[in-house]
């Protein structure tokens, strides 16, 4: 094992990313305004084992997508480490070594209408990673590879001659998946890959992703705000709130024995057939601004169980039932774990 680290495939430790959203310098000086820093991701630790699907859920603006972009290197982290198969991604290495690492991780994007270059033919879009990493020696081989990829996502090789605008949203997302698979990666970061699609097409894409995972032994980091989708696809789930992970647990445990008050609140909002007609509790309040996050536990303004300690001290994750929870109430034992039934309505 290189670097002598743990056996996890992907390891994220103390990851932080702050964005400077201050007004321009001159405006700031004239109006005497301070710098404004968004703490999009504020210290998270995730370990993902080979072949599993780790999901990140949370409300809009909690930093899920920023984590995805940090992992694939679209943003440099402000602090913390990202290790991929034992290699520190921030380590200095030659261009060829970096390319070798990049080849093994790819990303599927949220918006299938923006993620394909409108002026390129589908063939060239899918062939781009193969060409960029020099994986194909000649034209015939390239054509065969792209044809195979198109078939794997249930399109035909003839579709390669078309332009992206000739396809529906679901088909475009499958083209996007084919491009992500083109470099034969082992790890795929999926940033809400189904949230822009019709419900009927969502299931189709998810089944395809599960199918491809089995066939190629892929590891997924799956970002979503749709709990039903997350339940369907994940091995383990991490719940994010304001740039921090509040709870990580195996899927079944998280949905049947949620611990963190925020997780319980999220689960209460899932619509299902058994509870038709019942008054359900909406998620109370709004996510506070990540520019001035609340002190202590960032969830305390919305938490029904908050006490003085929650307002003062940031909770550290504690191990519990195969997962971790960052909550003073759970740690002190004043909030009992409640059993729930979760029936996926699929």
């Amino acid at each position, binding site marked *: 094992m290189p670097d002598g680290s743990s056996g996890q495939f992907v390891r994220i430790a103390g990851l932080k990313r702050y964005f400077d959203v201050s007004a321009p310098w001159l405006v700031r000086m004239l109006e005497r305004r301070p710098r404004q820093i968004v703490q999009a991701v504020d210290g998270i630790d995730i370990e993902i084992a080979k072949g599993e699907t780790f999901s990140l859920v949370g409300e809009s603006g909690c930093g899920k997508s920023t984590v995805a*972009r940090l992992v*694939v*290197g*679209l943003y440099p982290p402000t602090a913390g480490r990202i290790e991929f198969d034992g290699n520190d991604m921030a380590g200095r290495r030659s261009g060829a070594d*970096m*390319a070798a690492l*990049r080849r093994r*991780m*790819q*990303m599927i*994007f*949220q*918006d299938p209408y*923006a*993620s*394909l*270059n*409108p*002026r390129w033919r589908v063939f060239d879009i899918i062939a*781009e*990673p193969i060409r*960029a*990493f020099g994986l194909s020696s000649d034209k015939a081989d390239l054509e065969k590879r792209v044809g195979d990829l198109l078939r794997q996502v249930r399109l035909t090789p003839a579709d390669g001659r078309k332009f992206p605008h000739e396809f529906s949203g679901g088909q475009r997302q499958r083209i*996007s998946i084919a*491009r992500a698979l083109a*470099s034969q990666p082992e790890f795929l970061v999926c940033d809400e890959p189904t949230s822009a699609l019709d419900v009927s097409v969502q299931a189709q894409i998810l089944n395809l992703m599960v199918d491809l995972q089995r066939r190629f032994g892929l590891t997924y980091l799956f970002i979503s705000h749709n709990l039903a989708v997350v339940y369907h696809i994940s091995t383990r789930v991490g719940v994010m709130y304001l740039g921090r992970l509040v709870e990580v647990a195996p899927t079944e445990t998280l949905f049947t024995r949620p611990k963190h008050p925020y997780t319980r609140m999220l689960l209460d909002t899932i619509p299902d057939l058994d509870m038709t007609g019942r008054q359900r509790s909406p998620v109370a309040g709004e996510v506070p601004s990540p520019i001035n996050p609340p002190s202590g536990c960032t969830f305390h303004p919305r938490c029904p169980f908050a006490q003085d300690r929650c307002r003062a001290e940031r909770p550290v994750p504690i191990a519990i039932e195969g997962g971790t929870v960052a909550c003073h109430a759970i740690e002190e034992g004043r909030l009992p774990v409640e059993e729930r039934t979760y029936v996926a309505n699929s």
Partner: protein
Amino acid sequence: MATGAAFSGWLHRAADSDIWWSFKSSPMTIAAATATFLIVAVAFLSPVLAPHTPFDPATLNLSDGLKPPVLLSADGDWRFPLGTDDQGRDILSSIMYGTRLSLLVGLASVVVAMALGIVLGLLSGYLGGTVDAVIMRVADVQLTFPAILVALLIDGVVRGLISVKRHDEIAVFVIVGAIGLSFWVQYARTVRGSVMVEKNKEYVQAARVIGLSPLLIMVRHVLPNVTGPVLVIATINLGLAIITEATLSFLGVGLPSTQPSLGTLIRLGNEVLQSGDWWITVFPGATLAALVLAVNLLGDWLRDALNPKLR
């Protein structure tokens, strides 16, 4: 074989396209395109088509001077259908050669402005930060002056630096550079705007995940998606560039009388206009007006045809 098939395939797609349909359904555009094509063809074939070589002193005869146009006066001479100037040069031939020069200067300065604007706009939009701030402040300052003033300034500086004789030799390059430098701002701002929109789109991020260099991403992904608006500006600016060159030449700071453009011809004619020899200035003027009008109509059409919101 393969290229032939590819070409016919391209032809079929072009015939199906929205742009061709919008072209066909606008008589004004067809007229403008025909006029532009005719003027350009005649101008570039002037060495073959022109009845005289007006700027070869050996072929000139002073006794042919100031002949009026044939159809309008009994004094006309069929060798000079649009009359002659005071030196005995054929106006029709002068216009043909002059149009060619005006078009060349116009096209070349559009290319210079476009190249400069695209490069600076790409850098500004993609890199952002200080580079963007510097380029855009320069652009803002330049926008506060009329383009003609900037061109005059550049031309004046070059004249101050080199001798008159040398200047006459490189006058064409000086004027192309002067007009090009005074029109780059529009391209840069348009390209910058488009790049800032495109660079945050997920297809550019997908290319970054693969690890393509910023230069490759700009050339392969971003640039093709900003060509539409740039093409429209180029077409509209072609008319402007021709007019600017004509204005500079009319003011006497453009092309010398030895290689007259349409603007120079208008200036030369203007000197004798008060004595009633109107044809020397009116015919080049009418040609200039027709050319610029036709090119501008084409530019307007292209702008509308490429705007999806107007389809």
